[in-house]
């Protein structure tokens, strides 16, 4: 009796809703994969079952790699993401370290300013930013996005790292300085290495955000050879005719795989970064 009751409770309270959430979250990816692996004849056959594949084919992938600059876009995206993440981690930690561990005038005001800049959306800035990049003659260069992505990332990274920097006891630093280390040495040799998980969280978050970014890429990168994956797929794979969905889904899937792969290795750090703001407050 009791066993049956808890079994029923588990089914209704856990397994059914869990499967529901999983199906909703994942079916678009299944549809992407199914579409990309069908030939056009099967894809546009109204009688075929939409989610099954009768004759799997890689023709859309081959076309994608042969006819477009897709691999170049992947390389651009990676390069931009790595450099933007690097710049953001450097600047973000330079901002966070004094704010978290030092006493100086204006610290409180500065901390609030950082929190506010964290919430300033791109939407408010893109018109003047487009003008600024144009005047700096950086249009159609990867430098344009490498310089502008950190503006989206630095405030967030600083905020996240401040939380980690605060957890290291001040005595450690004082002890090192009594032993003769300079402030700089105490920071680079003792405090920063202890905050490695924080850097991983911030880094993985910044990396996925840079790969995701769309608006600045849309504004600054109009030449095919400098495009990133999101803007390349939307700008060049969507053509007027009806028979492009196979290639488009192949591009969307291939473009998602690097992010998903990196994310799957660091999922713990990603979740820590995602929830840090809300839970630690």
């Amino acid at each position, binding site marked *: 009796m009791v066993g049956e009751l808890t079994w029923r409770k588990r089914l209704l309270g*856990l397994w059914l809703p*869990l499967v529901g*959430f*999983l199906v*909703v*979250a*994942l079916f*678009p*990816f299944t*549809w992407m994969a199914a579409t990309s692996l069908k030939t056009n004849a099967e894809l*546009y056959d109204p009688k075929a*079952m939409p989610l099954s594949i009768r004759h799997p084919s890689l023709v859309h992938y081959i076309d994608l790699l042969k006819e477009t600059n897709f691999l170049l876009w992947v390389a651009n995206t990676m390069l931009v993401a790595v450099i933007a993440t690097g710049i953001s981690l450097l*600047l973000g930690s*330079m*901002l966070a370290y*004094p704010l978290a561990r*030092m006493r*100086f005038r204006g610290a409180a005001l500065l901390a609030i300013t950082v929190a*506010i*800049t964290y*919430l*300033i*959306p*791109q*939407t*408010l*800035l*893109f*018109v*003047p*930013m487009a003008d*600024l990049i144009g005047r700096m003659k950086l249009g159609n260069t990867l430098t344009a996005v490498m310089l502008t992505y950190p*503006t989206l990332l630095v405030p967030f990274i600083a905020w996240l790292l401040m939380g980690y920097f605060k957890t290291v006891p001040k005595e450690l630093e004082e*002890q*090192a300085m009594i032993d*003769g*280390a*300079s*402030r700089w040495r105490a920071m680079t*040799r003792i405090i920063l290495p*202890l905050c490695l998980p924080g850097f991983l969280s911030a880094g993985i978050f910044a990396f*996925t955000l840079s790969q*995701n970014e*769309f608006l600045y890429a849309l504004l600054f990168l109009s030449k095919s050879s400098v495009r990133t*994956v*999101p803007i390349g*797929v*939307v700008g060049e794979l969507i053509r007027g005719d009806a028979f492009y*969905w196979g290639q*488009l889904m192949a591009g*969307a899937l291939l*473009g998602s795989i690097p992010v998903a792969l990196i*994310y799957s290795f660091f999922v713990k750090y990603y*979740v820590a970064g*995602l*929830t840090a*703001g*809300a*839970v630690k*407050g």
Partner: protein
Amino acid sequence: MSKVLEASRAGALAAPARRPIRFGRLGAFMERESVFSWLMLTPPLLFLLAFLGYPFIYGVYLSFFHKEVARAASFVGFGNFVKLYDDPIFWQAVRNTIIFTGVATILKASGGLGMALVMNQSFKMKSFARAMLLLPFIVPTVLSTVAWQWILDPGMGLFNRLLMVSGLAERGPSWLGTPTMAMISIIMVNTWRGLPFFGISILAGLQTIPVDLHESATIDGAGTWGRFRYVTLPSLLPVIFIVTTFSIVITFFDFQLVYVLTGGGPANSTHLMATYAYSLSMGAGQMGLGSAVALSMVPVLGLLLVLLTFFVRKD
């Protein structure tokens, strides 16, 4: 703790012998907390000033000018805002933005709470399930939105094909073709993408609730609902509040989803303020007018920021 001890030992070893080094006069000056701090702070602050502060102020400036791409600007005072006041598409965009943000946020918050409560039970492969559930949030939005465009395709898309195959409807609706359906569709896709963010954040909040709170509530005679109502929900409110505020900011200023899915159409019926600002400034070349649209969003942002700081202070 052992890690900390190890590190302090390593630090002691790294310092050459146990005697204080005499820094030069410049060195001693650099060791002062305020000097060290400002030396570190200056480069990132200059960067943020140049690429965040300056564009923001320049945007405010632009909104008071009639400025077309590659032309000189001429001062028009509040002219741009007056023009917007008489522009029905602008008000449509304002209405859409409020509806889009409001409905999507309610759906994401309630769905996310449900997801968190389901995920807060112990079962096999839990971390795998969590990773899968977060996928919609981490995959580049534009790419998943393109997939959604194909799912919602009126002729060959997945939804209408399934409706046809199952015999539920002879012809499915035109998901992106009529104003009402298009609004429903963009809200649906935004909810699909953002729900995991709520789910995982609230789950993290759930895990911080001490078990003995639930135990004592049970001893006091609280049932499942009672425990949820009087223990779980009150402890979760701070997390839900902060996540909701973040999500409102992000949703209110959303651009890429609508840009890709409907382009603001059909007939400007799904424009959000962000896509309308883009289409005015980049499509029609009206930089001043576009800036004015973007700037009209600031009061909302300001209100949210005040709420957030008030709440964090109170905490």
